């Protein structure tokens, strides 16, 4: 394998802990990510899984430098971006895009879909042939051209998420962060969106960090998985290996807790310690 697209070494992120903020003065910092090391190989989808509070979303935000690390480094194609200023980051942002969890709140209600998709293009000096580029973006995510003039509230949840994907991919980025992008969708729509993302990632050679709480979805979509808990990596390995032979007890618990759509009378029996 060639050099990874993104390399993370000793990454720590601390954020102000507002629950411990004194009346006057600054909130003390709480360390959310406690030293992470991993690589995101080029052109593959990496799943990041964990329960609430595990730090998976904080990690995602650090990867696209919406947060500044307190220690460690994030290198994109060999260049450390962990402490770059906003001005220095701007030309790099084109290659670091994000698809949001809730397309309702991440799409501007007062702008037509065409204008939402065009915004990042204009920002990055691709304002020429805007109409063609927007049309391509819509086509790419399987939306009819007539949607260009529609507004967010006229779309279904799945269609909105397609717009979110179209916007993120309009710039043909190298890296896309997808943070719980299907958790608000019905299963039938979820299947469509994931199939679309899978297809586009393969076609465009995208490097994707796919954050999810759902291991079933990760198994289908991702080539490797990072399991997180309380700001640390519990286990990271190739997807098949992780499911067939989970090394850590926590990973085994996570997998065992998924209710599979099949009858299993023993599943709800009180926990008895399985023989090791």
């Amino acid at each position: 394998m060639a050099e990874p697209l993104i390399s993370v070494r000793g990454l720590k992120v601390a954020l102000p802990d507002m629950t411990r903020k004194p009346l006057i003065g600054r909130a003390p910092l709480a360390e959310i990510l406690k030293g992470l090391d991993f690589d995101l190989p080029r052109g593959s989808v990496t799943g990041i899984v964990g329960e609430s509070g595990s730090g998976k979303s904080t990690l995602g935000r650090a990867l696209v430098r919406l947060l500044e690390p307190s220690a460690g480094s994030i290198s994109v194609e060999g260049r450390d971006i962990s402490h770059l200023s906003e001005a220095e980051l701007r030309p790099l942002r084109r290659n670091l895009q994000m698809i949001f969890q809730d397309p309702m709140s991440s799409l501007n209600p007062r702008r037509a879909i065409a204008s939402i998709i065009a915004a990042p293009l204009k920002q990055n000096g691709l304002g020429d042939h805007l109409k063609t580029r927007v049309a391509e973006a819509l086509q790419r995510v399987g939306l009819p051209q007539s949607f260009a003039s529609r507004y967010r509230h006229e779309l279904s949840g799945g269609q909105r998420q397609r717009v979110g994907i179209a916007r993120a991919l309009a710039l043909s980025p190298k890296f896309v962060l997808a943070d719980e992008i299907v958790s608000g969708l019905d299963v039938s729509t979820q299947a469509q969106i994931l199939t679309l993302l899978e297809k586009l990632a393969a076609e465009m050679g995208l490097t994707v960090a796919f954050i999810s709480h759902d291991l079933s979805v990760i198994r289908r979509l991702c080539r490797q998985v990072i399991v997180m808990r309380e700001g640390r990596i519990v286990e990271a390995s190739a997807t098949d290996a992780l499911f067939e032979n989970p090394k850590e007890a926590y990973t085994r618990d996570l997998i065992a807790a998924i209710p599979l759509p099949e009858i299993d009378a023993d599943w709800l029996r009180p926990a008895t310690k399985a023989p090791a």
Partner: protein
Amino acid sequence: MSATCLEIRNLSAVLANGQRVLRSVSLAVEPGEVRALVGESGAGKTMIGKAVLGVLPLSVRIVEGDMLLEGENLGRLSPKARRTLIGTRTALIPQDPLTALNPSRRIGPQMTDRLVRILGWNGERADQRIRQLLEEVQIRDPDRVLKSYPHELSGGMRQRVLIAAAFAAEPRLIVADEPTTALDVTVQKQILRLIAQLQREHGTAILFVTHDLGVVAKISQKVSVLYAGKVVEEAETAALFAAPQHPYTRALMAATPRYTDPLASLKPVDEAVLAGLAAEIAAADRAWRPRHG
């Protein structure tokens, strides 16, 4: 008097603009049985739960059908009589425990007051019952929980408190509306296990609303699959998973991700299935003549 805990016959409801949201729904829940209502958003599963409890939004009007709680026709009761059923003979386990609890009161007084107000108990008896209930929902340090405000508890802990509250008066029927949707998978498993155990011990019937076929498979004995306010398939849960009959049920199962079989799951629902459903619903609406309303 029939022994059936809850019977819904031919229930239809419309919005103010005449659009049907429930389409001649019929189902029964036997005593001590868990019936799952499963469907995607807009399927009307929550609506049925609300109709049973008598807490439908004002914009929804029931135009046809009967609901019988242990043989008693709920439609004939006065609104006041309906309200007194909630918390005594029926109860709700809500989806979001944070909004169901009063944020500005400690858990203890909040729960005691409920029992005093609804059941007319004195404070001491209510107090005792609550401690007993917290033990039943496996809360290890009841003193801390009783003194906490809702925001100081984890999601799973809050849901345990609300499960305790639901079982407090030994209701015959509990409506559980997506009670584990907001929880992490490991906590979800604990909560499902807890609901199943209490339900068995108390012989409570549960109408379990969920979008997750995985949860259906684990918690229920019977299941109704809903689409656009219509029951498209009804079966014993084991039979449904062994041999789903309706194309929509099969499509839902194929769309549900499962880590054991990644390539055969997460299949998008076929357009033909959705077209078939639309035709089925349109035909049902054409044939429908409300008896009154």
